[in-house]
């Protein structure tokens, strides 16, 4: 499904800032109904990239139009039969669009791009083009805990706090020890990534809260942070340099 272009603001915040913002925004936000008892949802994304990590390099090169391809599940691991989605995230200047394809009856074979055989559609042709042009293969995985909130009044506004962002090598299983010992952790546990997403416009209460909290907008691409943490870009072979 083609999503519409949306605004996405990102900030790195401390747990104190989160408490401050949630208190300030309490009349505007409700918790995500799908979250667990602690209001968090685990998110695991398997990213795909070219053999020379073109999507990763595009970010560093400052390209204004960029793509990312990932397989996402809301759990600690990819399990057969679990709800999984293939997503293409496209960035065009300051706007972001997501093309999302659910994978009903997901099996672990779907983790390999070679096994992506979908019926012909507009979305799939975009995916197929990216797959062929970039010779997509598994790259870093990113896992984190997402605390999501929705705006009560503006249906298109979503606020999320992502914590325990952990980088994993392709095919690596997430273990409790890896998270607890912060082995692949891309930032200390007392920090989290605040994301504000809105299709129409960023509401005034968000802007005022951000100003009151003295937050500074920052590019914090999880895939790029994970690649840097795992030092995967060093694996680029001579042929692609």
């Amino acid at each position, binding site marked *: 499904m083609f999503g519409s272009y949306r605004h996405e603001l990102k900030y790195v915040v401390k747990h104190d800032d989160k408490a401050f913002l949630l208190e300030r925004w309490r009349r505007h936000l409700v918790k995500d109904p799908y979250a667990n008892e602690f209001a968090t949802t685990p998110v695991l994304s398997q990213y795909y990239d070219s053999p020379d990590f073109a999507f990763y390099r595009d970010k560093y090169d400052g390209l204004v139009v960029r793509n990312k391809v990932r397989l996402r599940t809301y759990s600690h691991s990819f399990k057969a039969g679990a709800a999984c989605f293939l997503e293409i995230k496209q960035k065009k200047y300051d706007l972001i669009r997501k093309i999302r394809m659910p994978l009903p009856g997901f099996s672990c074979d779907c983790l390999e791009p070679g096994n992506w055989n979908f019926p012909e559609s507009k979305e799939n042709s975009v995916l197929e083009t990216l797959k062929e042009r970039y010779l997509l293969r598994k790259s870093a995985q990113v896992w984190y805990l997402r605390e999501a909130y929705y705006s009560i009044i503006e249906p298109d506004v979503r606020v999320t706090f992502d914590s325990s962002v952990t980088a994993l090598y392709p095919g690596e299983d997430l273990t*409790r020890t890896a998270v607890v*010992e912060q082995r692949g952790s891309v930032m200390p546990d007392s920090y989290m990534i605040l994301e504000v997403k809105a299709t129409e416009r960023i509401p005034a209460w968000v802007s005022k809260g951000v100003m009151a909290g003295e937050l500074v907008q920052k590019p914090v691409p999880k895939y790029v942070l994970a690649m840097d943490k795992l030092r995967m870009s060093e694996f680029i072979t001579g042929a692609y340099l």
Partner: protein
Amino acid sequence: MKQTDYFLSQLFRPSEAVNFGLADVVLAMTVSAILCFMLAGAYRETHRGTSYSQSFLLTLFLMGTSTSVVMMIIGSNIARAFSLVGALSIIRFRTAVKDPRDTGFLFTAIVAGMGCGTQFYMPAIALTVFVSVLVTALYHFDYGSKQRLDMILKITFSREGETDSQKAIESVLKKQFKRYTLINRLLDFGDGLATNVYVTQPAKKTKKDELELMLKEIGGVSSISFFETDQNSNI
């Protein structure tokens, strides 16, 4: 040839109120640039965080050298001073200066430039040297920082009898820390365990070994990990 001579004489002719020559201009700009170089060095040396910008550093040089020439042009002529204000008002400065410290550096560069432009070299040099040394010293002594080391504490325990374990853990934390906040829970790994992640502010009396022993005595607790985070660190 005559024309060239005319243009050159026009170019370097002293205007009615000018009492400086090309050598004075070059000297003012050179001294100003050297002072800005010193300021830029102090700025780069003492910069913290991720907002470092090379373009800001270049701006310091532009500000310093251009101000020195502006001051020479204005001299003691009030009409020229007002013209300058008028001319500057048409420029829209829309770039936000992110750090108040940056404003301070810009101001110092302007003052140094003013000093050079009005041939008050000694005060300009004294100011730049003093400010650079002062800022560097304050930076190295970490003056004014309200450092707070937070401890991240991760306690893994069995989900069986979880309520009792949690109560016991929190009573230990209450005694050992000035402040603690549960920021996360790691569940659902299929191992029957839960991990609570706390951000705590240690009291002076807090000793890691004792704390670890006290927590391990609680039934169901299987592992404890500590991490220290500087709350002032920039990501």
